[in-house]
């Protein structure tokens, strides 16, 4: 039996009896605040997209690119096979997505209509049609053939000419190139070229002129619909997998227990008993082993207090029930609570009181690595007449209260004397969270082993139906 209660974690390296994992978890809450700050930024993969034609490395002399860099015209007289007017996009196609797609519109098919659309590598010989050299592919309008590095092309689709909208795409899931004409797919071939690929357009006879669309305008082909149907195919295969019956109910139950949503849990238990047929949650044993109903009422109460902004009462309750949590005034939990009190004062316009409180309780965190940036951002609330419209608006959101409530919840759970090794972060995550993390890492790992190509699992996208 402990003679003195263990101090809670602090950010400046005090790991007295909390293993590294416990500290990581509490620091995790600070990271979550940093994540909130970025919430408006699109959750993209950080890849730059092709937006226009590259005039620097194009086959200048044979062609001319328009000032807006979205159309190209062949200016030469076609004499032989090494005076093709080839131009690539300014950036390679992104790879961390399901597909990439772009289109050309043939404004003028010139004398011989020898226009091509395809993909090439950075080192491509810019005097040859895409597909006439290895590590390139091209769909040619004069014969409708697909060329992919061998001398001869193969019959592939229809020819295309003036007023046709022709598209070229990459499907990273199926590892294929696909091409479209006037809104319909004409064919696909396996993609066996590795590395970054540039969308490429070529013109080869006098007066040929082509407009290029990298997505600024609506495509003739319904690429979003295509992506949706590809995802559906995968989804249909996944739906066939069988899982234990009623497992969803068990996971929801343990989730509610873990976070202390007691009232919801009671309503949920009642509802599942009254369902026809009654839902039997098989994991009663698992739930008991976890002892996840430890301090349920207290956790519920503390959560309510924090969510209502009653921080003083919350601190008093913690002092009374779990003094070990608030013993170290420089711990993450104390920081979050004091921060929240400050926020609540600002929220109701009590700025002077806020400043005093900040001096008293928050100033000590300035200069502590791990806290400084957040303290500064928090203090910034004072500078705005309408802080909810400022860059630090997220502090005023309900989600911030929820975050603090979660931290308090985790701290209380970690006082459970019955659980060995409570500080390991895996014990402080609900089962549902563990499953979601595993799902994400498996997808990321698989993608990484696949040359980083393709989509990865994003809970937010799934919840929004990938919109």
């Amino acid at each position: 039996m402990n003679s003195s209660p263990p101090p809670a974690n602090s950010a400046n390296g005090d790991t007295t009896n909390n293993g590294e994992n416990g500290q990581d978890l509490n620091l995790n809450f600070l990271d979550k605040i940093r994540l909130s700050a970025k919430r408006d930024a699109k959750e993209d993969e950080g890849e730059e997209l092709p937006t226009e034609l590259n005039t620097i490395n194009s086959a200048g002399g044979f062609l001319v690119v328009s000032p807006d860099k979205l159309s190209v015209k062949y200016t030469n007289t076609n004499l032989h096979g090494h005076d093709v007017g080839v131009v690539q996009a300014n950036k390679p196609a992104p790879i961390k997505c399901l597909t990439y797609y772009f289109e050309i519109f043939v404004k003028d098919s010139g004398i011989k209509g020898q226009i091509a659309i395809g993909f090439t590598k950075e080192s491509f010989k810019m005097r040859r049609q895409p597909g006439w050299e290895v590590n390139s592919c091209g769909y040619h309008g004069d014969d409708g053939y697909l060329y992919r590095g061998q001398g001869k092309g193969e019959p592939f689709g229809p020819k295309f000419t003036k007023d046709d909208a022709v598209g070229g795409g990459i499907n990273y899931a199926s590892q294929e190139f696909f091409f479209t004409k006037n809104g319909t797919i004409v064919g696909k071939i396996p993609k066996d070229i590795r590395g970054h690929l540039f969308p490429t357009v070529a013109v080869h006879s006098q007066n040929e002129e082509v407009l290029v669309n990298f997505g600024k305008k609506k495509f003739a082909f319904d690429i979003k619909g295509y992506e949706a149907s590809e995802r559906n195919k995968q989804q249909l295969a996944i739906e066939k997998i069988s899982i234990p019956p009623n497992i969803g109910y068990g996971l929801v139950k343990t989730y509610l227990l873990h976070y202390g949503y007691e009232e919801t849990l009671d309503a949920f238990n009642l509802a599942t008993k009254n369902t026809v047929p009654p839902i039997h949650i098989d994991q009663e044993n698992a739930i008991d082993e976890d002892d996840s109903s430890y301090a349920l009422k207290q956790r519920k109460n503390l959560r309510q207090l924090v969510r209502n902004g009653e921080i003083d009462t919350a601190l008093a309750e913690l002092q009374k029930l779990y003094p070990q949590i608030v013993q170290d005034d420089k711990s993450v939990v104390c920081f979050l609570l004091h921060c929240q009190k400050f926020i609540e004062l600002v929220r109701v316009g009590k700025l002077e009181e806020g400043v005093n409180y900040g001096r008293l309780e928050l100033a000590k965190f300035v200069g502590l690595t791990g806290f400084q940036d957040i303290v500064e951002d928090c203090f910034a609330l004072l500078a705005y007449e309408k802080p909810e419209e400022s860059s630090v608006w997220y502090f005023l959101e309900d989600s911030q209260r929820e975050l603090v409530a979660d931290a308090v919840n985790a701290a209380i759970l970690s006082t459970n004397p019955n659980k060995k090794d409570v500080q390991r972060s895996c014990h402080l995550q609900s089962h549902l969270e563990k499953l979601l993390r595993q799902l994400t890492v498996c997808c990321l790992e698989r993608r990484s082993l696949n040359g980083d190509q393709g989509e990865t699992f994003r809970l937010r996208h799934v919840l929004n139906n990938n919109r």
Partner: protein
Amino acid sequence: MITREEWEKKLNAVKLRKEDMNTLVMNFLVTEGYVEAAEKFQRESGTKPEIDLATITDRMAVKKAVQNGNVEDAIEKVNDLNPEILDTNPELFFHLQQQRLIELIRQGKTEEALEFAQEELAPRGEENQAFLEELEKTVALLVFDDASTCPVKELLDLSHRLKTASEVNAAILTSQSHEKDPKLPSLLKMLIWAQTQLDEKAVYPHINDLSTGKLEDPSE
């Protein structure tokens, strides 16, 4: 092989938003129709339900009516909710009428059952071969004194009521532009699939027990 330590580092590096997990749970409660639980969850967590909770109560009333064998009542309620549902769902409407017939037979109201079958169901059967076959199967129940000897006795089973209730529940959800299944089970299947896919290329700690999420060391 990816060690447990390396793997746990990756797991902890994932950015998972609490609000997204809350949304997933709310989606479950709402789709299953647990109104009170959804209300409480909204209060305790601040998560907004994705559809109006009042519509859930209506939907659950319909489901309950069918589960209790009060099909006429259920049909009335569905039409109150949205008359287009049955109009645009002939198969559902037929199944509801068929359930009504089954209930009449169950109650021993033979004459009424026959009248109902002839007036309401036979015309549908004429339009549609599949309906006709279903109708014939149902009417066959009348021929047997002891239903337990009837080859189509599963129609009398209470589970058939649940099947019909489920069908109407799904149709209402669809009419409200809501998916008829909660997302959570799909994600669990996705996890199994993702692990199987990754097995082709790497050795790493698995989660084999979905109910606990316990991480197990890479097996030999």
